[in-house]
């Protein structure tokens, strides 16, 4: 039994289940799934479908955070990727053709990959702090996206393209399958290659890893490439969903939600051990919470207040130092922190 409690995924799973149960009690139709025309419908299905862009971005963010980094540019990369795809489709003579859409999607994802290469270069080679390095693209990326669309919101009417976000296959939404594919590929790479454990090693102790012969530069670089590429796919799903490239709104604040999902899933922002499963649950928690807030009749614009409270609670609880500090007299709060710091250093020194 204790093993279950100690599992890193215990609290995320409990939170998610609690949300589902509370929702179900408040509105029994929440867990109802109906079938129409060979498609499943319902609040739960919506959550799975709508969570796809955040899922992809958060998976990439997990890897970046594992290397002690952060990628702020994911929202901007989404905007660029959507803009590229839509501009290609819009500019082609035949927006409805499968070939056009395929080319557009591939090019857009490749552009996103290049943007990931760029971020990785700044962080891994030039050794610029990740927050700052990715801030550049976060700022400039939307400008690039606007430039690609010529400053307008490009809209297209292309059935194959819309299919990506709104289509159904085997009873379930296509977007859900894209999420599942991304999760599967990443878990497979993590299990079948040594990338996962080497990434953790670099994130936990970069110097020990270097002395053990790990190529930390390449590993950090590839994390940003993965993050950029996944953000590119997320941008396509987003654009497909609204059938338009909106350079200003695409992926706005998604970096923040992605970081929140990673933290909710039990991966520490200080790098090292990561859990893809945890991130998946984190994303589902956020999406369910979002749906709950909507159900409560709170305008979605106000939902950030709830997320702010969640962020504060999570970071405060996650910090083990704070747990120690809280147990002491509140007057010695300041000291408690520096004290643990120094003691840890002392142990290291010995």
């Amino acid at each position: 039994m204790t093993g279950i409690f100690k599992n890193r995924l215990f609290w995320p799973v409990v939170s998610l289940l609690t949300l589902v149960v509370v929702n179900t009690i408040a509105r029994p139709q929440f867990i109802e799934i109906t079938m129409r025309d060979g498609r499943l419908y319902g609040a739960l299905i919506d959550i799975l479908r709508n969570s796809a862009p955040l899922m992809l971005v958060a998976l990439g963010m997990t890897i970046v955070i594992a290397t002690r980094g952060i990628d702020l540019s994911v929202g901007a990369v989404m905007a660029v990727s959507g803009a590229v795809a839509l501009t290609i489709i819009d500019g082609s003579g035949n927006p409805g053709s499968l070939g056009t859409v395929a080319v557009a999607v591939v090019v857009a994802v490749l552009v996103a990959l290049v943007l990931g290469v760029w971020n990785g270069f700044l962080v891994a080679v030039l050794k610029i702090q990740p927050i700052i390095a990715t801030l550049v693209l976060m700022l400039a990326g939307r400008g690039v996206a606007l430039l690609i669309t010529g400053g307008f919101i490009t809209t297209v009417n292309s059935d194959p393209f819309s299919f990506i976000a709104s289509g159904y296959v085997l009873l379930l939404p296509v977007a859900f399958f894209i999420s599942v594919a991304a999760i599967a590929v990443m878990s497979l790479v993590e299990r079948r290659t040594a990338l996962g454990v080497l990434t953790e090693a670099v994130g936990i102790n970069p110097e020990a890893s270097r002395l053990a012969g790990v190529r930390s530069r390449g590993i950090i670089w590839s994390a940003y490439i993965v993050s950029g590429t996944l953000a590119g796919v997320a941008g396509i799903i987003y654009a497909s969903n609204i059938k338009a490239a909106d350079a200003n709104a695409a992926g706005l604040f998604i970096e923040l939600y992605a970081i929140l999902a990673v933290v909710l899933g039990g991966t520490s922002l200080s790098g090292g051990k990561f859990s893809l499963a945890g991130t998946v649950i984190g994303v589902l928690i956020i999406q369910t919470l979002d749906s709950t807030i909507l159900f409560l009749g709170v305008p979605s614009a106000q939902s950030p207040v709830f997320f702010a409270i969640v962020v504060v609670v999570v970071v405060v609880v996650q910090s083990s130092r704070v747990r120690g500090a809280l147990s002491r007299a509140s007057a010695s709060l300041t000291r408690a922190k520096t004290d643990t710091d120094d003691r840890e250093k002392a142990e290291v020194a010995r």
Partner: protein
Amino acid sequence: MTADTVVPPIVEMTGITIRFPGVLALDKVDFTLRPGEVHALMGENGAGKSTLIKALTGVYTIDEGTIVVDGRQQSFSTAGDAQAAGISTVYQEVNLCENLTVGENVMLGHEPRRGSVIDWRRTHAEARKHLVSLGLAIDPRSSLASHSIAIQQLVAISRAMVLEAKVLVLDEPTSSLDRGEVELLFRVVRDLRDRGVAILFVSHFLDQVYEIADRITVLRNGALVGEYPIAELPRDALVTKMIGRELEDLATLSSSAHREIDRSGAPVVKATGLGKRGILEPADLEVYPGEVVGLAGLLGSGRTELVRLLYGADRADEGEIELHGAPAKIHSPLHAIGRRISFSSENRREEGVVSDLTVAENIVLGMQARQGWARRLRRSEKDAVVTGWIEALGVRPANPNALVGNLSGGNQQKVLLARWLATAPELLVLDEPTRGIDVGAKADIQKKVSELSADGLSVIFISSELEEVLRLAQRIVVMRDRRKIGELESASTDLDGLIDYIANEGEGSAA
């Protein structure tokens, strides 16, 4: 200084005990400091010097014991408290702000003000006054970063003067200074001593201690060894007290020192003139198949620096390396591992284990890194390697899935040894593999080194424990003050001979 006996002490620390989780860092240590003396605090790494200083300067709170400063019992809880009581500290890594000017660093927090507005003219004038009183004619308006570390140390001392420190703690202030700079620092230290300031001096350079100190307190393994006037403690006696005699039960252990080494063929590794400016003077080193070469010398003598250059962990600016007689370049650790050289760092926690990973993951990390990320080691292969080494080295708990961070120091060290042996090296470099670990683990590691070298593995063995070096190594390279001072055959020397060599050899030329 015969006056010592009549001047009442300014600092009296009695029965100081500090515990860290799982470690007794200081065990009932007494320490006395008198006005107008330079008092050296000596001990090897982990002896408790830094801990004692941090107890005195308010960085650590003590678990037991009393600290009396200037006749008043004190319990400091911040660096600010200690400063208010007249104790200032200058650390090895200068604790000033490089982004500010010299004058600001001297006066920070004590600037003369009109109302609440800082009077910069008077601030700089006062800073200049304090700098000049230490013989420093530098512009207080110049940026601190534009000055050498030595000048920065003196600026830090000037700051202590602003605080009217009665006690000045100098924690390894000379480790990054050259001889001229040390001279400059010592002139200031003597001057302050003559003005009646009590100075606590920590350094691992024996020459400097004998040059400046009036008295010496020696610590070993967190306990007090004793306090001695400098004239009554010759160098070799000091070294013996710092290092200590080893436990008898270890003395009966395996020895490989007398094994004959065939040095007719090409050495496994031969370094010629390997050096790095400011880190290590060019040194030669060669290791033959099946040979154990000991590197002896005190902490900071350059023994770690030498092997780090050899391994590619730091980039050398000069020197050549030959492997099996063929010239080779080693740019990075990965490069070294590919050439079958392995290096286990002395800094187990920061540069050795990856604490949040499991025993198994730590053991295969080196192999996996060499193989590249794309090809993960097969599970069967990995399990065989892991269980094999856990058994061979007696890692406890023998659980491959335990987190390394939760293991004892000795078992962490065994995991590291396993990691490096798993890469099947031809040359294994072990830097302080037995420091701070229990006797049983120590014996296991020594035994393994002895066995492996008998089977043809070449080893470079670094240890502060000279008995260990004498017992395992056939040849001993002796280092002091960041240079190699000579080589000895183990068979032709004993512990006293080696201590004497470390303390005195080449002494005339070094001064």
